[in-house]
């Protein structure tokens, strides 16, 4: 029966069961990923954000929580303009972090 609404799926994340391979690999090649304090400056300045839903903050957060497919969807919208790197208060080279992420996605499947 369609009520026009439904119960949203649970968004609980069980960190004990999450697969951290991607995050560990990211920290290995981009140790600066750990420095992120999720301030959101990157997302606020993002050129692509309004059009594609890209948000560096959410990508990093997502990967830290094992939400790889959500992160991948956002990464596909990045235009690589580099503004996020310029405004990052922690000095993270987010532009290179994004490129590295694009590279390591699907590495394990090969």
């Amino acid at each position, binding site marked *: 029966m369609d009520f026009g609404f439904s119960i949203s799926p649970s968004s609980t994340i069980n960190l004990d069961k999450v697969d951290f391979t991607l995050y560990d690999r990211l920290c290995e090649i981009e140790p600066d990923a750990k420095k992120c304090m999720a301030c959101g400056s990157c997302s606020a300045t993002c050129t692509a954000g309004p059009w594609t839903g890209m948000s560096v903050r959410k990508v990093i957060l997502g990967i830290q929580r094992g939400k790889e497919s959500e992160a991948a969807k956002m990464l596909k919208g990045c235009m690589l*303009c580099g503004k996020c790197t310029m405004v990052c208060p922690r000095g993270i080279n987010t532009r290179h972090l994004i490129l590295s992420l694009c590279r390591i996605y699907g590495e394990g499947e090969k």
Partner: protein
Amino acid sequence: MIDRFASGFAPFVIPFLIGMAFVMGYCIVGAIRLIFQLDHGDRKRFLLSLITPKTAWKNIKDIFLNCLIHVKLWKRNKLLGFMHSSIAFGWFMLILLGHIECILYMPHRVKLFYYPIFFNYFVAENETTLRGAIFFFLMDFFLLLVLTGITLAIIKRVRSRLFGMRRTTKPTLLDRVGLYSLWLIFPLRLLAESFTAHISGGSFLTIPMNMMFKAFLGEQMNMLPTWWAYSICLCVFMCVLPFTRYMHIPAEMLLIPFRNAGLTIKHARKGFAKAQVYSCPGCGVCIDACPMTVKKANIKDTTVYLNRNIRRGNEKRIEEISDKCLLCGKCTAVCQVGVDGPQMRIAQRSVRNYGLAPDYTGMDISTIKDAVAAEPSKDRVLYFSGCMTALTPAISRAMESVFHKAGVDYAFMDKDGGLCCGRPILMAGRFDQARQLIKKNREIIYASGASTLVLSCPICYKIFREQYKLEGIRVVHHTEYMLELVKAGRLTLDGAAGSLVYHDPCELGRGSGVYEPPRELLRQAGELVEATHNREMSICCGGSLGSLTLGFDKREDMTVNALKNLTEGDPATIVTACPLCKSTFAMYADRPVEDIAETVNRHSK
């Protein structure tokens, strides 16, 4: 002139013949391979350019001027220019005159390939003529010229600073073998010809030396061993040549026609790119030019080392070097053979494997389109400020104010956010994504009905000009556009801006060749002071988007160095024409930094 030997042969020519056969074979096979590595269209273009009289003539002219006379080097550094042209041109003349002598005096020996090289050994002078004396004089003169060049080369090896080079590359082992054999060739030739001068004849250099040696050694002149040594040295030089930096000598003769045919790098390692790698003489001029090498940092990340590592196939280093570069293009501006450092690096970046590829095809841009949509008009101007200007909104505000003052009918394409121009992702080597962005932006531009597109960001300007192919729409940088407004009398500058220094942004100056319009504007706005290194020699601010791996924390030294260059004339204000340069300089400058739009806006009515 008569033959000394009926056979016209001596065993010592064998090493020379081996060396010559090897180097010729190697270069011919290499050249054919490179030509076949070009894609079909490029190959056709290249072969056509060889038979088109205009480009063919240009090829000959360029090869003569650059490979033999080294005109470009002369313009940069007279001493280095003299050193190179004396060796290259002198050697060429020795070979040429040797052949002419052979044709004139020993026509039956012309078919012997080695004969002109060892002419003096094979002939005996039976009568003295004026023509012969002139030839001998010329031969000695050019030998002396080459020897002067070699002497300078030896001095340069010991003290490169005397030649104005602060840092040079360290030669590899094979480079050294090539270098020392090259140094030895001409002194040995002089010795060999001197020992033989009483038989073959000689001139102001060889005859006195012959007499001197005779006084010391009597009739025991060791003629044959020196000819052997000369021939062996030639053999060693030619056999190691393909594996040393001296490969640039033959490679440049292929690179020049490639470039004149208008080829671009299509493959990271093959064809045109490979020709560039082999044409790199490894001189290291790019080390001093590179903005990253300030305070002796990043020396091994310069273009010369990129080429060296591509030749060695060191993938890890190729990746590091190509990702670190700021793509400012100064190495190309100083390079004598014109190796395109930025393009080479972008090509290396483009061959990476990515698990994820951005895709913008589904992006809905109708709101931007609707905001700028208008009927096509020849007076309508579309202004695109670009991503970087979003971080320095003073520039777009100033531009809007200028438009109002001049009464321009304009639309602001990314007032409420727009798409990226695609240049940053292109610089990262992801061409397909850049093409998608270009397609989207083109849709917006065509919907705007504008006939002129004004850009205040040189990064955008470069890609709009080169890749967008906007038919019927003029693409201008805001410096050019404001100058047009001033010239048309729609904007008047008051000239009260005080002393200004102009910084040439890399993408605008070296990237797009716009040097004069901003200067003309600033001369009218205030008093223009020139920086020590300006125009093509301008130093990158360090903020460039070209670098992928260099964090902003590592760029302070570069910015401070670039600022020092700008402030040597003690100007009151630093003016630039790039939002990125502005924000980078503003972080460390001790005086105001502004965009040219702000200066013009403040001092115009």
